[in-house]
């Protein structure tokens, strides 16, 4: 089932949340009404999965982001400059208007010594120093992905480097886009909203309601099986994966509508239970990812 064939107005509207914002933004950029803003993408302790996910974005693509929407000041995986030059470039934004995007958790053990992001004026710069310095002065801070929003995989037990979320080291509002990784649309849509209208409406946990308002379970195409108590017994069954430990009922995000890899598919459609990667506490709190031999069926 491809969502593009869906004619439900709610699905259509929600699939286009990011696209509509970005279209408005593109028009305003063409008309020269909208000013580009500086964007810094800081990568701390993580796997670079969010920047890779963003590179996969199509609507608009990464090139448009760095050439038309923003002045893309710094990203340690993608910047052309290296070494001290790159670090000077990074810290040159201080004093100007900029938006700070952060992926990866903050290591705190031994004053952050386990993540050195570079050397400035001959001195080592730890990730924790960088995120504190840049985070305090930024116009907006957006934490992207599980590690930045709540510690995620980097903070999973036993958490040897004592990783924490970006919010834990900053005394200010941090917009949070949990997900492992973050969908390109969640970031692009949030950024477009900021450029056009400022901060989007957020829930109690600072997630943009544009994307994080409904449970996966509430929009899951297998929901009617759940309601009737018809459950999958093994991977590959096409029914509800509740008894296998599906985390769709505790995970608020729009995967069933938006889908992944340029809107092609998503885990449940591909017979994998949701593992709650967009829920706070992932991965520890979402384990076990799969269970067999659990409670008996309630209805047949």
């Amino acid at each position: 089932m491809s969502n593009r064939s869906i004619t439900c107005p709610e699905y259509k509207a929600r699939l286009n949340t990011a696209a509509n914002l970005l279209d408005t933004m593109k028009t305003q950029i063409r008309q020269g009404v909208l000013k580009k803003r500086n964007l810094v993408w800081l990568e701390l302790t993580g796997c670079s999965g969010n920047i890779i996910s963003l590179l996969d974005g199509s609507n608009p693509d990464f090139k448009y982001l760095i050439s038309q929407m923003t002045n893309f000041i710094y990203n340690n995986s993608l910047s052309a400059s290296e070494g001290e030059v790159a670090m000077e470039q990074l810290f040159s934004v201080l004093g100007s208007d900029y938006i700070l995007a952060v992926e990866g958790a903050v290591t705190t053990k031994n004053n952050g010594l386990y993540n050195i992001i570079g050397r400035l004026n001959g001195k080592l710069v730890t990730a924790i120093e960088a995120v504190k310095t840049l985070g305090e002065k930024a116009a907006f801070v957006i934490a992207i992905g599980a590690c930045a929003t709540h510690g995620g995989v980097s903070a999973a037990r036993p958490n040897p480097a004592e990783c924490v979320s970006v919010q834990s080291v900053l005394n200010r509002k941090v917009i949070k886009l949990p997900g492992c990784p973050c969908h390109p649309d969640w970031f692009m849509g949030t950024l477009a909203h900021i450029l056009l209208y400022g901060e989007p409406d957020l829930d109690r946990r600072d997630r943009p309601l544009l994307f994080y308002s409904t449970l996966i379970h509430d929009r899951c195409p297998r929901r009617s099986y759940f309601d009737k108590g018809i459950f999958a017994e093994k991977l590959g069954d096409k029914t509800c994966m509740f008894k296998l430990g599906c985390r769709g009922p505790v995970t608020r995000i729009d995967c069933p509508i938006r889908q992944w890899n340029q809107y092609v598919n998503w885990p449940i459609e591909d017979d994998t239970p949701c593992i709650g990667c967009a829920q706070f506490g992932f991965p520890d709190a979402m384990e076990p990812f799969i269970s067999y031999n659990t409670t008996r069926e309630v209805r047949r």
Partner: protein
Amino acid sequence: MRAQDLSGISFDSIIAEVNYDINLLYVVPCVYTRNMILNHLRDRISMVESVTKAIIQPGQLQPQPLPLQPGVTPIAEPPALQQPTTPGNQTTFTLQELSKYDGKGGNPAYVTVNGTVYDVTSNATWAAATHFGLTAGKDLSNEFVSCHAGESILSKLKVVGKLV
């Protein structure tokens, strides 16, 4: 469908819902809403179907009178585990007895909060009898307070007894 799950299903209210849906179908102009209602209707009808089947299925159990009101006592099959009971018709559990209801090997999943034992077997947020790293078959009073203080979610759960 197992007959024991029929408790709580009221034919009267299913029929009322079906009638309500039909009336609604006459007036809604929107095709999407209409599809939703049709879906709901189909769901109710299959519910009636499975209830009927469960009642007349030979071998599985004796024909039983239909439960007509919600809240009537379960009409069949003992649960997988013999529930410990005390006089006074109140099921009670010791911590050790509770630990068997861990949601594994076909057992139901029960948890205790502040002395009351709740059934979370079919609760969506307790998939595979686990919930944010917690497992069933335990007294989770402290965990509940630290995570859900002030939320009125326990009233949505089925009460199965008391912890002693």
